[in-house]
């Protein structure tokens, strides 16, 4: 039987990770683009590139001029530059490259703990499947990529602590890409604490790395307020947003997440005890993953290495109790020369690029009110459905939105007024008058649409998926 602690290879072959990364990166190009938040990220990226970083809102008429978060500025710029260079296929290419990188890092982390490539690949599959739900065209995909890199780095640094030197660089990049850097810093600190306890000879290095990493989070345009977004999401997830909802195991992604958690639970019960560093990584990440649906991939990614190293022992223990000898693949990984890795990497990259170029580039706009664009009145005064805010920011820049997926600028009065309006709260008429709304663009089944139709408000445009009303007596 393998002793999990001794299966760590001194050098990982990147061939299998690159092959799997290339395959999944290419496969990701089959998914059309169209995430509701993509469009306002692109708009913000364009604004940063052309006019510099905007610290106040310029896209809405409800919170216009009020402060906005700038925590994802670099991610937005990169997405926009991809679009500027190659159009929508640039977006697909960037997404495919990020997916390929994530899968590559996940499989590499599995191989660090498991010599047998097939076992490592199987152990990585649940995590890859769960990351599928994060393959969106947003900076958060970059955050997930940074997280996968961090897991691999911490795994490798457990044996070679000098690798931690790369940590502050990763954190500073991450902090400018996406607010999930806070999770990275937290588990880095915990992992460093474990290393500090276990390796007295590297204590100075560990302290320096942690200090530099903390300082690195301040090297962003947001300064100290970079922590606002991360803290807000973690302590008070906006449950009204689907992806911020509680993980639901009756949904496919939730089922995969539950599978991973149960796999870790059963493996921990039946495999030999593991090192404190596994606990230091898995326990805090599991808690974060349980807070919101969008966080579930983190635990799956973090647990890959543990499962790859220990699950075979757990399976063997079950087999022994059942008096069945499980036949696990026994051939060991051969570590090819770096040249082979390089060639395979080039081939994988070429496959991802080729698939992105031939992919259908145009975004899927079936969920958006494309037919309303020519009827939208310019200038402020249109109350729009939350899900369509980003779409309108990009496709109808002359008509500022009332609300959109940026969410946090609207928390408070604007969001409360929006909810009162669309759900026909008792003061909906007062809100309409106070806000000076001129038109309402909503889904036909929403209470305000039904009521407006009852009251025979004039309809400027409509389809089965949207309706645009003119508010009577509006100025």
């Amino acid at each position, binding site marked *: 039987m393998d002793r999990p602690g001794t299966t760590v290879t001194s050098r990982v072959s990147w061939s299998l990770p690159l092959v799997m990364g290339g395959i999944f990166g290419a496969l990701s190009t089959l998914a059309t683009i169209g995430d509701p938040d993509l469009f306002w990220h692109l708009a913000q990226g364009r604004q940063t590139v052309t006019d510099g970083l905007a610290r106040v809102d310029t896209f809405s008429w409800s919170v216009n001029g009020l402060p906005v978060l700038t925590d994802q500025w670099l991610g937005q710029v990169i997405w926009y530059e991809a679009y500027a260079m190659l159009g929508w296929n640039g977006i697909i290419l960037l997404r495919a490259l990020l997916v390929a990188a994530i899968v590559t890092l996940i499989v590499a982390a599995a191989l660090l703990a498991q010599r047998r490539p097939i076992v490592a690949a199987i152990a990585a599959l649940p995590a890859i499947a769960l990351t599928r739900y994060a393959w969106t065209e947003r900076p958060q995909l970059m955050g997930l990529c940074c997280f996968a890199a961090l897991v691999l780095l911490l795994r490798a640094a457990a044996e070679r602590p000098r690798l931690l030197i790369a940590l502050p660089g990763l954190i500073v990049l991450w902090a400018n890409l996406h607010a999930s850097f806070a999770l990275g810093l937290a588990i880095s600190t915990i992992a460093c604490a474990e290393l500090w306890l276990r390796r007295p000879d590297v204590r100075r290095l560990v302290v320096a790395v942690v200090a530099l990493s903390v300082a690195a989070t301040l090297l962003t345009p947001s300064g100290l307020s970079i922590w606002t977004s991360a803290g807000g999401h973690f302590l008070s997830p906006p449950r009204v947003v689907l992806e911020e909802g*509680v993980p639901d195991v009756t949904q496919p992604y939730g089922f995969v997440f539950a599978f991973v958690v149960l796999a870790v639970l*059963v493996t921990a019960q039946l495999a030999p005890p593991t090192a404190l560093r596994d606990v230091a990584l898995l326990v805090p990440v599991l808690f974060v993953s349980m807070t919101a649906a969008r966080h579930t991939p983190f635990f799956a990614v973090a647990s890959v290495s543990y499962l790859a190293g220990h699950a075979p022992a757990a399976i063997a223990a079950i087999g022994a109790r059942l008096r069945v000898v499980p036949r696990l693949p026994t051939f060991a990984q051969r570590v090819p020369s770096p040249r082979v890795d390089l060639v395979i990497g080039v081939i994988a990259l070429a496959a991802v690029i080729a698939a992105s170029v031939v992919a259908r580039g145009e975004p899927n706009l079936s969920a958006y009110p494309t037919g309303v664009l020519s009827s939208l009145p310019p200038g402020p005064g249109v109350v729009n459905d939350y899900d369509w805010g980003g779409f309108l920011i990009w496709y109808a820049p002359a008509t500022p939105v009332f609300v959109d997926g940026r969410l946090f600028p609207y928390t408070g009065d604007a969001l409360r007024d929006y909810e009162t309006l669309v759900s026909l709260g008792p003061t909906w008429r007062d809100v309409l008058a106070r806000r000076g709304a001129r038109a309402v663009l909503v889904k036909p089944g929403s*209470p305000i649409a*039904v009521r407006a139709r009852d009251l025979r408000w004039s309809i400027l445009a409509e389809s089965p998926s949207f309706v645009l009303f003119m508010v009577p007596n509006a100025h």
Partner: protein
Amino acid sequence: MASASRPLAAAAANAYPLAVASAVFIIAVGLPSTDSDTYWQLATGRWMLDHREFLRQDIFSSTVAGAHFGIGEWLGQIAFAGSFAAAGWAGVAVLRAALIAIAAFFLTRIARRGGTLWWISLPLVVAALLVSKITWTDRPQLFTLALFPALLELLLSLPAGFSRRLLVLPPLFLIWTDLHGGYLLGLAVLAIFAVEGVITNGRRGLPLAATGVACIALTFLNPAPLELAGAAREDFLHPPRFLTEFLPPDVVTPAGALFAGFVLLVIGSSLLRGGSLREAMLLAPLLYLAFTAQRQMLFFCFAAAAFLGPRLTSLAPRWRVLEVPGPIRVGVAGVLAVAALASAFGAPTRPDDRAYPAAALDALRAGNGVLLNEYDWGGYLIFNLPERPVFIDGRYVPYLGGVLDDYRALVGLRPGWRDLLDKYKVSDLILRPERPLAVALREDGWRVRSSDQAGRWIVLARP
């Protein structure tokens, strides 16, 4: 001498569980009834007591009147209705407190397994009970709350091979089957132990397996054996998410955070110390069940307490000296037990009905025709306003597939709402004022017959 010391040792061993159970009883008996489902459960039980027969069809609503209605919890409903008949709301409170105390007693015994130190087991017990607080409602599910840890304690203490304690299981399941649908979970746990017993002990595991088969057979003696199984299957596969207790665990709430604490402790300590096949077989399915709905979290926490105690104790062996001497334990437990008995006389004689439209009853009584009511208030109206059949209530299953969808379309002002209002011939309604339907009908000239000054409810009638 030996025979005299044996009861004393038994008393000392049970002193912690008795003390915890007594304390929990004192707390639980002081809580007034608040749950809306209590009312229709009481009304159902009361009807069966009065008519000496099962209530197999709906008699409370205007929308599904005469429709088949499940009787899977008949004994639990009669138990609550009997308590109410005997001592009013105080009787309900005493029954509730007794069931929760039983749960606390067996949970403490579970958590004390393997010589777990009291200062480790007590926080585990308190945390698990706090997680279970969501189910401290006066409904038959309290019987499952009590019987689940009792079953677990019995199964965990069984030796391999035949034991006379196995004979407890068939009658336990015979009663549980008629009390609440949670018996299915009990059967699943029994099956897990039976399979694990056969795997681990071979032939010596067969007596438990045979007992399990007998228990399954006995559950078919329920007047409606498959009704509850069907309902439980639906709850598991398609939890009604519009009900708070069926929402997935939310770890940023207090109960959810405690549940998460159990999950993290189990996984973290198992990573460091390992576990067993039995623990894996038991906790993995219970954890999945807990992930499906908040109301299921407690089962994982109860079972986890059994394994966490010994493991956490092994992490801190140097603190064993803090164990309290036996005579002091027995004394404290005795005092608490007496206090618990005395506290029963202070049980609340009225429910806490602040969440319900109590002041609207007179206005509603004056009306006739079809009343459209808020879902959460259906049970309350069934019990307190029997002359006005409800539109919908917390039984929810009879309303699935038609009335529930129509109710949502109505109160949410979905397209076609006017047709639905006419279809059901709604003459008046009692809703929360912020409901889109209430807002629209007020604007359309429906008369406000009564309203709450605090803005919690409004009664509207057709003009």
